[in-house]
């Protein structure tokens, strides 16, 4: 048998039919929906007069458009409230499981899917949200889709897709102190650019990748979309199984043992051919920050802003950020700190933030938004004393949601202000009109939160 990549194994086993001329009909095992990209899809079903084909394969949550304080009160903004209510109504009408606001299982769609055990190795997973790639950390084919495709999945549990090309990115060696999974992925994107993997599905491999925890793997796969990739995935291994074994809903399944056996084939065979292969050395990676307005515009925290490529896009970007080539950002004042999102809103991330701010104080002038990715993360943070430690250092834990990651709610960064953000996009206006976003890891965000400036987290780490 010809050796196959992990991607091909999963994809091939989900193809129902190949349409003449290219695309294939792909069966979807798990579908996630949220309030922003689903209402028009339900309207489509209504217009066609058809039901949801497999309601138990779709899970719904409210996350994008919700406030992160006073969640027990009705949502103040009328449009947002309406959108969330519509989701609740649609789920009721079509019999879809829905974890709405205040539900103990509510949270950002890409945080709750994995932590509740809905995301399992070998699955095909889609959601009307580009960061669906997060679920690839479990060895799944997971990718973002548009609303028309949400309608297809609701109607038939299938979508029509062209098979992407495959790329393998190996990260060898070991990460240095203070270098996180976020730095690893920001580094890779800075090397290949924000369009560098367009058309590809990326498998991350190599010792520095297998050494990552599940939370860290999710950070890496989450941002694969930021280099243009359709998605990213990592072969499941003992780290994956240990994580799943701790989820009651998974561990108690009668078929858990047989699933474990089946999952053993979920790896790229020796000699499998990828359309493209890249290798990086983890020991070269420093804590990373972005300086521009796409995630590919990143650099080591102590480096100098490059001259760029003379394009109007590059200079427009620096102008927006209020900086110039040749400048260093180290020591540059920061106004806002945002910790959260489906990139870095999990418990590992809060732990790492707290490790740095413990025994220190929030710098004067810093406004911090510390937003857990889900109700469970919030609860865990309270149980582990993280919430308390934050309070002592002058921070406050908010309630879960997407929050400042896309600023659909009130958590906006004001125009012209600098925000160190653990989210995934530094686009113009992403965190509010005129907001200046610098992407970084939770550790680097913590270093800025206690010093008020962009600070190399390695200088503050003492163990």
């Amino acid at each position, binding site marked *: 048998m010809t050796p196959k990549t992990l991607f091909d194994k999963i994809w091939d086993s989900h193809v129902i039919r190949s349409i003449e001329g290219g695309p294939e009909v792909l069966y979807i095992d798990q579908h996630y929906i949220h309030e922003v990209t689903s209402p028009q899809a339900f309207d489509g079903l209504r217009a066609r007069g058809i039901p949801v084909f497999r309601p138990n394969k779709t899970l719904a949550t409210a996350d994008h458009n919700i406030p992160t304080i006073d969640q027990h009160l009705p949502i103040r903004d009328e449009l947002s409230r*309406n959108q969330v209510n519509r989701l609740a109504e649609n789920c009721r009408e079509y019999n879809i499981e829905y974890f709405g606001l205040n539900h103990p299982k509510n949270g950002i769609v890409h945080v709750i899917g994995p932590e509740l055990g809905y995301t399992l190795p070998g699955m095909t997973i889609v959601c009307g949200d580009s960061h*669906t790639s997060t679920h690839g950390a479990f060895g799944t084919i997971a990718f973002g889709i548009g609303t028309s495709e949400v309608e297809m999945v609701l109607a038939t549990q299938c979508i*029509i897709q062209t098979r992407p090309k495959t790329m393998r990115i190996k990260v060898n060696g070991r990460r240095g102190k203070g270098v996180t999974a976020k730095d690893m992925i920001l580094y890779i994107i800075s090397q290949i650019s924000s*369009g560098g993997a367009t058309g590809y599905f990326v498998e991350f491999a190599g010792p520095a990748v297998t050494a990552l925890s599940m939370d860290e793997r999710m950070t890496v796969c989450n941002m694969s979309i930021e280099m*243009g990739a359709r998605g990213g995935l990592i072969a499941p291994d003992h780290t994956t199984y240990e994580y799943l074994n701790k989820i009651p809903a998974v561990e108690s399944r009668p078929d858990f043992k047989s699933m474990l056996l089946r999952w053993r084939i979920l790896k790229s065979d020796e000699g499998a051919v990828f359309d493209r292969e890249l290798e990086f050395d983890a020991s070269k990676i420093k804590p990373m920050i972005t300086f521009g307005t796409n995630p590919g515009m990143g650099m080591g925290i102590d480096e100098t802003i490059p001259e760029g490529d003379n394009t109007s896009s590059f200079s427009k970007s620096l102008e927006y950020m209020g900086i110039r080539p040749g400048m260093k950002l180290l020591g540059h004042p920061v106004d806002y700190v945002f910790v959260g999102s489906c990139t870095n809103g999990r418990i590992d991330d809060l732990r790492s933030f707290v490790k740095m701010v413990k025994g220190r104080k929030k710098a004067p002038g810093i406004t911090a938004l510390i937003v857990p990715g889900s109700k469970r993360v919030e609860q865990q943070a309270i149980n582990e004393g993280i919430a308390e430690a934050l309070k002592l250092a002058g921070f406050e834990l908010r309630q879960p949601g997407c929050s400042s990651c896309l600023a659909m709610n009130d958590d906006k960064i004001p125009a012209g202000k600098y925000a160190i953000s653990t989210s995934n996009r530094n686009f113009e206006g992403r965190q509010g009109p005129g907001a200046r976003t610098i992407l970084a890891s939770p550790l680097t965000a913590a270093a800025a939160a206690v010093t008020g400036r962009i600070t190399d987290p390695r200088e503050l780490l003492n163990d």
Partner: protein
Amino acid sequence: MKRDKFDILESTCVPLPLENVDTDQIIPARFLSSTSRAGFGENLFRDWRFDKSGNRNNDFVLNNPSFKGEVLVAGKNFGCGSSREHAVWAISDYGFRAVVSSFFADIFRNNALNNGLLPVVVPENYLNYLLDKIGREPETRVKIDLEKQSFSVLPDGEPVRFEINPYKKECLLKGLDDVDYLLNIKEMITAYEFRNTLKR
């Protein structure tokens, strides 16, 4: 569901010579709270079209009366960023029927095709030529022939071929959509599910 068919389009163009135009620029997140598909054109490129106080930014091309038309010509890596189909709805709602670039982000391209907005990929040097020409001569008309997969500058520019998936081309020409196709093969889908439960 039937939608408008796409065959031949002749129009003037609106040039947007910027690279990496992302979906947050096309339609900022704060305008995504609507639950219908209509009306997004009003906020297309909102933060470039209007300044903070809501005044028109006269430097922006959509506010320049010299440029109009149903074809948007933009720099490479157009539509990167989020999967929001609202970006496509906004562009269509504004009145564009095709976007020309040297490179489109994957999800954006899919979304466009699913909504009858044609993404036309042309070589980078041709794109630069085109942007330059339109910039200098806003009255330039172009012709997009989907059947022939050709793009040309009228009246007598050398046509360039663009690629499109044959299935999607068929859908656009006939005004059909993917849901229709999938609903027609429901038996195959059920059979697949059945096979899979047996395997387990």
